[in-house]
């Protein structure tokens, strides 16, 4: 089944991020001068306005900061309703990094604010993109996540 959900336009300014996902890393621009992480990536650090930022792999630990169960989806997403959209807060401090995304292997009804998450990766067949999803923190690593792929209500999953 072809993946029909929107995917990113990969360009020089964001290629490091998408290459990172393919390499099993979630890279966030970290300011060389003040040390703050910035999400979403901006051309300069929001804390000190330095343009010296380095794509830096983060811990991939996060918690649910907010979430919604979506019952009417745009385009191909409508085949997956209800699916979860979460705002996940990365463990990295002090500037908050709040990342929007979908879950994998989590029953949407089990979601709660504060729930520990871990960023995992999913290669999109037939496309040059690996994307990220949020799994439960205690879920299996991607290598043996095949079982998780069978859980229902996963917008991320491609059969």
């Amino acid at each position, binding site marked *: 089944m*072809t*993946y*029909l*959900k*929107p*995917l*990113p*336009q*990969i*360009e020089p300014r*964001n290629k490091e*991020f998408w290459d990172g996902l393919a390499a099993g890393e979630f890279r966030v621009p970290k300011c060389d001068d003040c040390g703050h992480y910035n*999400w*979403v*990536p*901006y051309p300069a650090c929001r804390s000190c306005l330095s343009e010296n930022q380095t794509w830096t792999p983060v811990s991939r630990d996060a918690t649910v*900061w*907010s*979430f*919604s*169960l*979506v*019952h*009417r*989806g*745009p*385009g*191909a*997403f*409508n085949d*997956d309703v*209800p*699916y979860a*959209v979460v*705002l996940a*807060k990365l463990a990295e401090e002090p*500037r*908050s990094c*709040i990342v*929007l*995304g*979908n879950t994998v292997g989590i029953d949407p009804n089990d979601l709660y*604010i504060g729930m520990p998450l871990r960023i995992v990766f999913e290669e*999109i067949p037939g*496309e040059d993109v690996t*994307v990220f999803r949020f799994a439960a923190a205690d879920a299996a690593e991607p290598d043996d996540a095949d079982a998780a792929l069978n859980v229902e209500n996963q*917008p991320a999953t491609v059969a």
Partner: protein
Amino acid sequence: MRYKFGSKCLISPAPLAGIERWKPVARPRQAAIAGVYTTKQGKLPDRTSFSLQLEAIKGALDDAGIPIEEVDGIIPMSMSDHLPGTTAHQFWANQLGERPLGLMEVGGASGALAKAALAIENGMCEVVVLFYGKAGSLVGPRGTAMPDRAPRVPDWSFYQSGAYMTTWYALWAQRYMHEFGVTHADLAEVAVFTRHHATLNPDSIMGRKGDITVEDVLNSRPICEPLNLLDCSLDNDGGYAIVMTSVERARSGKKEPVLVLGGAESTYTDFYVTINDPWFPEEGKAVRRATERAFGIAGIQHDDIDVAGLYDCFTITTIRDLEEMGFCKLGEGADYVKEGHCSLGGKMPTNTDGGLLSNSHAGDPAGMHTIEVVRQLRGECGERQVPGAKLGVSLQQGWAVHGMAGVLVMATE
């Protein structure tokens, strides 16, 4: 309360707790809203966005009694798709008869109108028209077609996660309910009072369906939990326009001028991309900033306001509007609504036309709240008229959830 040109600028009200006051500046002229117009709102399959915009421009000028020849400022709230590479104001400058126009846009409806008022007061232009019209497209997910391959979108776009506007407000509502112990039933109160107002507005889309209850909202089908169908604004076609000029010019028009006492706009973040923690800081964000500026410039206090039009794309939005604007404390917006203050007969009837939830939400409806406040101040609202309304305020907000705000304070002469 009577505001006169020149005299009101000398009023120096007592400071509000926690709100900085600006010393009102004496103005060379006073701006006023002279005309407003709304096209039919709803499903308009036989109309185009352009024809709704043109109808709205002509209609508002006719309401003002001002000919098109006098228009020299424009706030086009839509893109122009007629001539690629041509901005909307360039397109309209020629479409309206090779008219020399100043672009008065920026800041959403109330914020753009605030800037237009400054332009008029300082002689940059004489007659400004704000307008919008949209037909044949939808904002919500029904408007998205199934592609035959994965579409490519900007790098951090929420489209990749199957999110859309409703999802963002649902995430906002979920976090808000968590932080302040507010329930979905609390949010639903907003849908109930605005629907009641709509039943008194013969032009509203949902009024003919009658009143609803909190239970109706809770039992309507979920769209993006915790928001159900009746927590969401409509998604319809329609157009509207507003004409602003000097109070002197407005006085020689058809309708009683509605004075613009002041306004402001503020933006704190981007287009549904970056969210920072906290989302609900005690000191407020863009809406607070715009409100403090606007009320300071106008020299008014919260209790002075007779009627309000507060952006209500979702039930949560109105509750947050009330808190950010300082009508109640953080976390107490739903209590303010439940106490009846926003209902007709309450101390500040709000969204008396039925709002975006039950009157109309056509594409970018940011000017609709201002239009209803103008009609209230003119005494044109029939069954839903707020008796003796003399001072009104409109709030426009949008982008990344309360990300950009405009506030406009209006009064009778």
